[in-house]
């Protein structure tokens, strides 16, 4: 197996060719914030939180979809990156309606964790307060579009792991939103197997179990890495 060697924040890393910078950073124990990337599903570089600087390249690269190369020198915590990451999180908060105090995911939310990690104490951007809806038509689960950050983990996990492809993204730009089926109420989508993987994949409180109240959402974040290993390597240990 070919191995690439590189430096991440002055730490020497050796990792198999084809790995991503995010995987290499994890290998080296260097934390990089992320919201759309998740073990067990494909990466798409949507949230832009894992941007890093690579010496000799004049633009910022998303670590989750950038392959390692021999001799790369990577910086993950420059003042410029810290400023951009904070700005990105502020934009996510300003874009939706994120009210932690009454959210099912309060205290167990990746967006909340990232906001703390990047040191966001307020948003410099004006909140948009978009008019978004809640779909409780599914017998077991609900989706609250107010809390959706369009990471598309639900779309990918349903397609790639469960194979049901219930979710998709409709519209463009600021009008984007997640749809079930052909933009039907979730409860009417016959493809849904009610497996609940989207609930576990959702980083915020956007997709939840019905009846959950403030701060009650629990999720199994390692389920997808387990399923992926089980399928590919025939190993069922966690």
């Amino acid at each position: 197996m070919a191995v690439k060697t590189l430096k991440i924040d002055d730490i020497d890393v050796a990792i198999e060719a084809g790995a991503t910078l995010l995987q290499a950073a994890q290998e080296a124990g260097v934390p990089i914030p992320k919201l759309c990337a998740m073990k067990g599903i494909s990466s798409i570089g949507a949230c832009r939180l894992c941007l890093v600087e690579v010496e000799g390249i004049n633009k910022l690269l998303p670590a989750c979809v950038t392959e390692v190369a021999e001799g790369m020198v990577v910086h993950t915590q420059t003042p410029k990156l810290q400023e951009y990451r904070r700005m990105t999180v502020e934009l996510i908060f300003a874009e939706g309606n994120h009210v932690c105090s009454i959210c099912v995911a309060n205290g167990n939310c990746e967006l909340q964790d990232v906001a703390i990690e990047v040191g966001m104490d307020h948003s410099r951007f004006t909140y948009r307060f978009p008019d978004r809806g809640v779909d409780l038509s599914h017998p077991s689960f609900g989706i609250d579009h107010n809390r959706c950050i369009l990471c598309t983990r639900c779309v990918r996990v349903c397609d790639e792991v469960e194979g049901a492809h219930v979710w998709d993204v409709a519209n463009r730009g600021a009008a984007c939103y997640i749809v079930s089926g052909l933009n039907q109420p979730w409860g009417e989508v016959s493809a849904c197997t009610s497996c609940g993987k989207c609930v576990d994949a959702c980083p915020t409180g956007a997709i939840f179990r019905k009846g959950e109240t403030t701060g009650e959402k629990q999720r199994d974040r390692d389920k997808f890495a387990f399923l992926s290993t089980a399928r590919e390597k025939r190993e069922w240990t966690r």
Partner: protein
Amino acid sequence: MSKTVVIDPVTRIEGHAKISVFLNDAGDVDKAQFHVVEYRGFEKFCEGRPFTEMAGITARICGICPVSHLICSAKTGDKILAVKIPVAADKLRRLMNLGQITQSHALSFFHLSSPDFLLGWDSDPAKRNVFGLIAADPDLARAGIRLRQFGQQIIEILGGRKIHAAWTVPGGVRSPLSEDGRAWIVERLPESFETIRKALDIFKGLIAGPMKEEVNVFGEFPSLFMSLVSKTGEWEHYDGVLRFTDSQGNIVADHLSEDDYQDFLGEAVEDWSYLKFPYYKPLGYPDGIYRVGPLARLNTCDRIGTPAADQELQEFRSYAGGVPTSSFLYHYARLVEILACLEKIQILMDDPDIVSSRVRAEAGVNTLEGIGVSEAPRGTLFHHYQVDEYGLIKKVNLIIATGHNNLAMNKTVTQIAQHYIHGEEIPEGFLNRVEAGIRCYDPCLSCSTHAIGQMPLHIQLMKPDGTLAKEVYRH
């Protein structure tokens, strides 16, 4: 020439308000108005939310009595689920509400109102607060603060946090009481009993002598009283039926259900306040004036149901020589209720159900409308939700304890102003008495208008032609 005095903001209450005192040509008080000047609009922005979130959302109306909203909202949610909640959940909710009433009443008495009684109406306003009390009587202040802590700690033991513990849910509660929690409560009960005994002795001494005048002037008028009572007529704070009594102690209406509240409660609107004016419908507006809260609960019930509190209730009634109708006696009633709460907490501590792990019934949306009721520290609280077939809120109506007392609060400030204010020169101590008339009700204006803010005071003195003669601000 007639004038209006404005007290803005009203201090040491929860929320934001002002008082206008209208003087006539002779310089005497014509009338006084209590304006609630804040607005938040919870009823509107809850629309579209899942009903299961309502307890968490409505609790955020207030930091003093979030438990009241948690309980009332969960009870409304029970009705939408159409479930009977587990016995343990019922008792645990009661325990939290008893802790809530204890802490809120202790806050009202020791932190907000006792500086007036113990330091004097006319004492230096800069020291007439809980810090002045700590300087003057550190033992009493500490005991009062610890009594409030006892109630708050019960809330935290059950819900994981003192404020906004979203622990009551439609169908029951989230978690049972731990053995450690029970042990802590049992250990702290004797000290709490001692403190409330001391406070009762102090207050009874005051109204027997130095504060007799206040009893006659601070909202002494006939009115109806409304509260929950148990089906057998006992003092109640969580469930039961609604009862109206009058100033002679007659039962005007009994065994009323919260489901029919629109049949017997009307809500009038005045253009000078954001707080609506509820009234007893059969008597019309404003004749249907009624009071809720501690005074009303002690007046409507036949008995409290615990020995020490029942003895105090008897003494309370004999002090007034019948039905106590002075709003100044709200303070007295609050202390009797703390004693009742402590006794009821003690009874619950010996109940084996209290540590049961069966605490939550689960169900889907089974009815599209629910009305919940409970007794908040300040009085009867109603939540009314309409939901769609999936449980999304279509309409919300919240009738808050402080709102019920709106007519009575206005009558009280008028009575006090008429007694103490003559002419344009108004000593600060007199204004303080006008404010204290409001404090008798321990109003929570944040809740009652579902509104934001603090409670500074603004008094305006208005001339007969409507122009401002003088104003006094206090922040």
